[in-house]
């Protein structure tokens, strides 16, 4: 039976069909749907882990006990998991261990666009690279077999246009793994990576990669040569292959289903069969560099194809047409100027608790070390209330480090802001540092009770597991106190005055402090009934009172807009325009009403 599956759903299905019993992930676009989908299969234990390093370690443990395990993350997640990854390459596995890493060329939802294919050479771990849904399913299933046969973790590399592309997939039934369950206490030299044993495994790793190279050449069914017109051959992989095939279907192709190790004999074969070769790869020239190093002449690669951003069929056509057909293709002249249309960037939801909090930070004129999550949207004007953001947890260390330079001068001027999920992911380490080494930074935890930006995933602080079962919930206050933070404050972000006062006091304190927002659930988290805490269903602008001062527009609420047009207030003051609230969009949070100094925004009974 064929069904249309998203690439991520197909990966989950492939793992399920291959008899996977454990799945671990930390959510991250574009990888999040894999574990969410896998959690729907009752035969599989799945979890949202606190971070990717933990996820991989749990998956490795499951593998040592004989279970097939899958661990999923976005590209930057693999940086977190790199420590166990590099040594799991040495210990190898028992049950198949597959690590899915989803890249984001073009940075649709990411802070960088690193090419994860580098991990495969660096870590001496094979990597498969599917191009569409069917391959996502098939490659994931095969990855478990490769893992067990060669005693290696296997990387499966996806990317935005593979993970978030839907295509028809042929479904099969689940097959349980034959691997006996259990732990073997006699395998110390294989699993205890102290230097004396690790040196021996270091040799094993090289031997394994040599065997995998032969496998890539002789057995792996997805390194394919398609000979059409032999005057030109393309070497490509993943979705780049599909784009190139779309534009130049008449030529020959070598499609690499395994990004590493490379099939040397097949490559030699291909160079014999075609006259000239162009390598098409997204981001870095990994294949190109390696194949050149083998001594082959590559006609074109990154000399023509951009190394920055995602590829598209249009880019392939634009940059390669001259080299392929001799004719340059110029992008068609646009009929209509669309650059001048007003942009529509993403925004925080109406009623979101981050909005008043960042308004408070702006009023306090703090330098805000931000983090990864919806709250990064606070960087957009008119709020413009975030001044540094690097990676998960980085803001906490950053704020503390800046204080070490500024000393007394910096007090009252710096804070760190991060979400609940992000704090548990990577925020406790730097907070511990700030306390232990005498920093004065203030860390504000925006507790919206969920991992919001990636689409509502549970985490150790929400009180629920991935399957929705009740679980222990981390108590942030106790956790902060246990780390040695003496000053932990709770704040209601919807009360702007109180929020400003608390933050001002803590930011000026000569000691590390933590502020936790309370009763501030994500507006999309239905079980918390986020609107129930608001006293009024919605607000309206009293057109008799509004002066058109635009103060309420500073919070960038999607429900509030400005309408130009001369008018006069009840008290006879002239105005050039006035604010308007769209009742359909207003959530009733009342933040704008607190900001208005002229009693121009009034609650409606609904």
């Amino acid at each position, binding site marked *: 039976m*064929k*069904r*249309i599956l998203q690439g991520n759903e197909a990966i989950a299905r492939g793992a399920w069909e291959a008899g996977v019993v454990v799945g671990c992930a930390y959510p991250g*676009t*574009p990888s999040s*749907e894999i574990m969410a989908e896998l959690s729907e299969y009752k035969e599989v234990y799945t979890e949202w882990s606190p971070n990717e390093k933990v996820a991989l370690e749990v998956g490795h443990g499951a593998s040592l006990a004989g279970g097939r395990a899958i661990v999923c993350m976005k590209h930057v997640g693999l940086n977190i998991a790199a420590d166990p990854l590099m040594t799991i390459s040495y210990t190898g596995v028992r049950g198949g261990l597959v690590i899915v890493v989803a890249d984001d060329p073009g940075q*649709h*939802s990411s802070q960088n666009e690193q090419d994860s294919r580098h991990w495969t050479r660096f870590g001496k771990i094979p990597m498969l690279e599917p191009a*569409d849904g069917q391959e996502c399913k098939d490659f994931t299933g095969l990855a478990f077999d490769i893992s067990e046969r060669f005693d290696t973790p296997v990387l499966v590399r996806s990317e*935005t*246009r593979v993970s*978030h*592309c*839907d*295509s*028809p997939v042929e479904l099969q039934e689940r097959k349980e793994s034959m691997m006996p369950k259990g732990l073997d206490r006699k395998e110390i030299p294989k699993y205890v990576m102290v230097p004396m044993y690790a040196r021996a495994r270091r040799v094993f790793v090289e031997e394994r990669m040599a065997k995998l190279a032969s496998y890539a050449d002789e057995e792996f069914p997805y390194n394919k040569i398609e000979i059409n017109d032999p005057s030109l051959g393309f070497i490509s992989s993943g*979705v780049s292959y*599909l*784009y190139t*095939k*779309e534009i130049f*279907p008449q030529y020959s192709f070598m499609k690499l289903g395994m990004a590493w190790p490379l099939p040397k004999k097949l490559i030699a074969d291909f160079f014999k069969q075609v006259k000239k070769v162009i390598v098409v790869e997204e981001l870095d020239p990994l294949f190109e560099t390696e194949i050149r190093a083998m001594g082959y002449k590559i006609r074109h690669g990154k000399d023509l194809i951009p190394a920055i951003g995602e590829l*598209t*069929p*249009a880019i392939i*056509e634009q940059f390669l047409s001259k080299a392929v057909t001799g004719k340059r293709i110029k*992008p*068609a002249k*646009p*009929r*209509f100027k*669309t650059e001048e*249309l*007003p*942009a*529509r*960037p*993403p*925004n*925080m*939801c109406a009623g979101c608790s981050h909005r008043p909090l960042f308004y408070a930070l702006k009023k306090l004129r703090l330098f805000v070390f931000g983090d990864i999550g*919806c709250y990064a*949207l606070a960087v*957009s004007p*008119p709020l413009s209330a975030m001044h540094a953001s690097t990676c998960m947890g980085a803001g906490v260390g950053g704020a503390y480090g800046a204080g070490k330079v500024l000393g007394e001068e910096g007090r009252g001027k710096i804070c760190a802001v991060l979400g609940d999920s992000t704090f548990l992911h990577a925020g406790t380490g730097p907070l511990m540092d700030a306390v232990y080494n005498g920093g004065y930074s203030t860390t504000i935890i925006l507790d919206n009770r969920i991992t919001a*930006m*990636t*689409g509502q995933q549970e985490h150790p602080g929400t009180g629920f597991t991935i399957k929705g079962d009740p679980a222990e919930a981390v108590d942030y206050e106790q956790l902060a106190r246990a780390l040695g933070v003496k000053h932990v404050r709770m704040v209601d972000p919807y009360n702007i005055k109180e929020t400003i006062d608390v933050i001002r006091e803590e930011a000026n304190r000569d000691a590390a402090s933590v502020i936790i927002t309370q009763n501030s659930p994500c507006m999309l988290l239905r079980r918390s009934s986020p609107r129930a805490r608001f006293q009024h269903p919605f607000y309206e602008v009293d057109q008799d009172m509004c002066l058109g001062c*635009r103060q309420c*527009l500073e919070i*960038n609420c*999607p429900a*509030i*807009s*400005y*309408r*130009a047009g001369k008018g006069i207030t009840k008290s006879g003051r002239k105005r050039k*325009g006035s604010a308007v609230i769209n009742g359909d969009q207003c959530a009733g949070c009342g933040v704008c009403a607190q900001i208005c100094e002229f009693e121009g925004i009034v609650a409606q009974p609904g």
Partner: protein
Amino acid sequence: MLDNNRTKNIFLSGVGGQGTILVSNLLGQVLLNAGYDVKKAEVHGMAQRGGSVTTHFRFGRNVYSPLIKQGEVDYLVSFELLEGLRYLNWLRPEGKVILNNHRILPPSVGLGDAEYPKDVEQTFRKFFKENVWVVGGREIAKSIGSIQVANVVILGAFSNFFPELNPEQWTESIKALLPARLHEINILAFNEGRAAIAI
């Protein structure tokens, strides 16, 4: 719909939260059942928070790329007027345009720093003449009691461009992809949309 075996390109655009993904899923299911190869691509995550959202949807005998090339869109289906206009240049000269007659102000317009484009329909007509259809998706959805189903109203209107598919094939997909409690309202929305335009 599928003349000379060429892969057909549909471009869906709208604002995060308008339900474009459900529509592309329904479209995919119908066309898969009808025996086509289908690929569609959309970006999830950050863009969903009220930002512009787009879906590249392609179907045919054998579809390679999930992404469409600018200038090769056969059907532009937009759930919001400005978001339709933004992708005008993606259409082929003979392309067809289906617009939901709905304006959602982007922040810069809300702040009074930019103007919402005037006469979106007229702009499209200048280039695409009679190949432009405007549907009051929101009003129709409101009249049947749920503004949530405006997306399916638009799908119903768009379904007119697939004469080889009968209404039952569409409603079957609605039943296959949506929970039972939503069948009735969505099928009603689909039928109202289907009756709203003539091609």
